[in-house]
């Protein structure tokens, strides 16, 4: 039977080496009704993913040590998080950024500053994607 479900709380991982930024986004997502957690570097992020695969990863590209590209690659290579939606965020896009993000396995690229409408749009897309994926499995 077809029922309309309330928007399900998404499990979101926010990865950014700037703590204030990561924390702000996590807080905001929490306010919007989702379960968000921050990671401040690539190693931390991958550990979080293997502990519990999120629905969505919002990943800052430019990070020290492990870059966002590297994190994406490793997430795609792992089996647990194959279906995670990977969104790259950057404040300094270059000519080859789009190509590089696609190669690394990201599903889309967003530019900073991240406005609220863009964020809500993204969350809606993830929610419907999740629903489709689940219906597909039946």
């Amino acid at each position, binding site marked *: 039977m077809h029922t309309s479900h309330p928007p399900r709380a998404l499990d979101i991982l926010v990865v950014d*080496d700037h703590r204030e930024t990561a924390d702000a986004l996590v807080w905001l997502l929490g*306010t919007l009704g989702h379960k968000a957690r921050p990671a401040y570097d690539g190693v931390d992020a991958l550990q979080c993913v293997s502990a519990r695969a999120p629905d969505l990863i919002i990943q800052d590209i430019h990070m020290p040590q492990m870059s966002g590209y590297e994190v994406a690659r490793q997430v795609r290579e792992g089996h647990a998080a194959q279906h995670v939606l990977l969104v790259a965020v950057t404040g300094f896009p270059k000519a080859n950024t789009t190509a590089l993000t696609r190669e690394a396995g990201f599903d889309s690229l967003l530019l900073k500053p991240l406005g609220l409408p863009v*964020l809500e749009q993204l969350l809606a897309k993830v929610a419907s994607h999740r629903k489709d994926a689940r219906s597909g499995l039946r």
Partner: protein
Amino acid sequence: MNDLAGRASLSPKQNRLLAALPEADYDRLSPSLELVPLPLGTAVYESGGRLGYVYFPTDCIVSLLYVTEEGPSAEIAMAGNEGLVGISLFMGGETTPSRAVVQNAGHAYRVSATVIKREFDRGGALHALLLRYTQALITQMSQTAVCNRHHSMEQQLCRWLLLSLDRLSSPTLEMTEALVADMLGVDGDGVAGATGMLQADGVIRYSAGGITVLDRPGLERRVCECYGVVKREVDRLLPAKDEQALRLAQFIVRHMEEILTEWDSFALTILPAAATMSPVSLRDHAKQILEAIAKDIQTHQTGQEQSDKSKGLARLLWDGETAAAAHGAGRHLSGFDLLQLGSEYRALRASVLRLWSLQAAQEHSLAFTDITRFNESVDQALAESIARYADEVSRSRDTFLAVLGHDLRSPLSAVSTLADYLLAPGVSEGKQLQAAVRIRRSATAMSAMVRDLLEYTRTQLGQGIPVAPQPSSIGQICETAQDEIRAAHPDCALLLETSGDLDGVFDAARLHQVLSNLLNNAIQHGAAGTPVFLTAHGENDTITLQVKNRGRSIPPDALQVIFNPLVRVGSTQADPDPRLSTSLGLGLFIAREIVLAHHGSIEVTSSDEGGTVFTLRLPRAS
């Protein structure tokens, strides 16, 4: 050669003719050289006598004289280490009417008649040298004839003394007045008068069995032109007397230490930052650059290659970096500007050529070629250094822009998103407050970044960081910093320890900035769960502050440049230090500028056992 030759002072190369021989010719002659002592008065050959040997004096003087039938004699010429005795052996005459007598005792290397004739007949370098010497000898003889005929006793005596001195290494001639009279072909009285005058004027002095010249310039002032004529001819015809004139390439290699020392001390004068680099690292590149230059000078260059090089078309070595390129990168890292880099090479050029010119006179055509090649080589090295330097500047700038874009855009993004949220309808007051707090945090971070940037720009424009010192207490400043850090990082342990008198005249706000920066760094990069230590100790005129954290140590090359701005160290390393590769790198630079503005000092040490320690020393009143 016999054992006496072991002593350096009796090397055959003491003799100018032997020293001037090309290596191959010398090596061929050398086994036939026999060292013999020549005591005073020895007759090397007699009038009409057959010569068995040719003699190359090292430190004796032989007079060629003619004894008249009546008895009086006169010196025709003298031969010392500038030449040889026995030209008739190779000129073909075999015998000669004159006799050769040792006028000043010493040694000579003799070569048998057979060998010298054989070598002479080869027609090579020795042949040419011997002929030129003979010409110089003729000039000496001719001038002697004229001088004896036309010039005063005193002048003749001066000429004779000067010519003798040129052929000895000491200012004392083993002569008696009677012997001098014999040489000059006059009776004793004539000489006595002249020597008496010279003695009275303090130019010479008699001692036991010898005449010592006290005032050589005095002799040169009194002598006639004959001395100059003879000397100039000898110098013109025969190669330099001193150690064999080195080609520039050999000179550079042989005097490497001397050149590097001069270059080092110059580098230290042009930039204080250079003083933080250990002498070994400055020298590393310098030595390699010089060696490369010396090698380049020596390699044969075709006419085409020479022309190409002068037009800058020579191959710039990018494969496997040259020492010069690495030097350019290193200088950029140390904060040199292009003018300073250029000055370094100018100093190198000047040092090398100055030291080289102090050597004995060069053969002009060879020296000219050497200098041209040297200059080309140095220009090449400079071009490589500059190209690489410019590269590093671009790279730094790109990094700066990238990091700036990232560092500012991140908190800006948070502010933007949160502001949007605040504008949305139906947000509770509680949520509004929380959002506002987060906006404030991001804004503060951005504000600090912009402030750092502006201050950095100000230092680059030569204005330095302004400080307004007031009577204040370091203790108070430390406590304020501690409170702030604890509020921002509640789960981090920060231990403060103070002692001594901490009062003085400081810009409290600025020092607070420094401590904030150091403490934040320490917390961010210290090992998780370990405390950060802040200590302040006042003693006499100085207050010493230390910020210490445990954890992964900073590598030595990073330590050397850690206070330099916009430096991206470790990007080629497998494990780059995060402190340097993400931030703008301005915090520590500005911290140092503030400390310097207080006339203090700041340094850092880092090891795995001791942790990382920043030490500040501030004068109580600046």
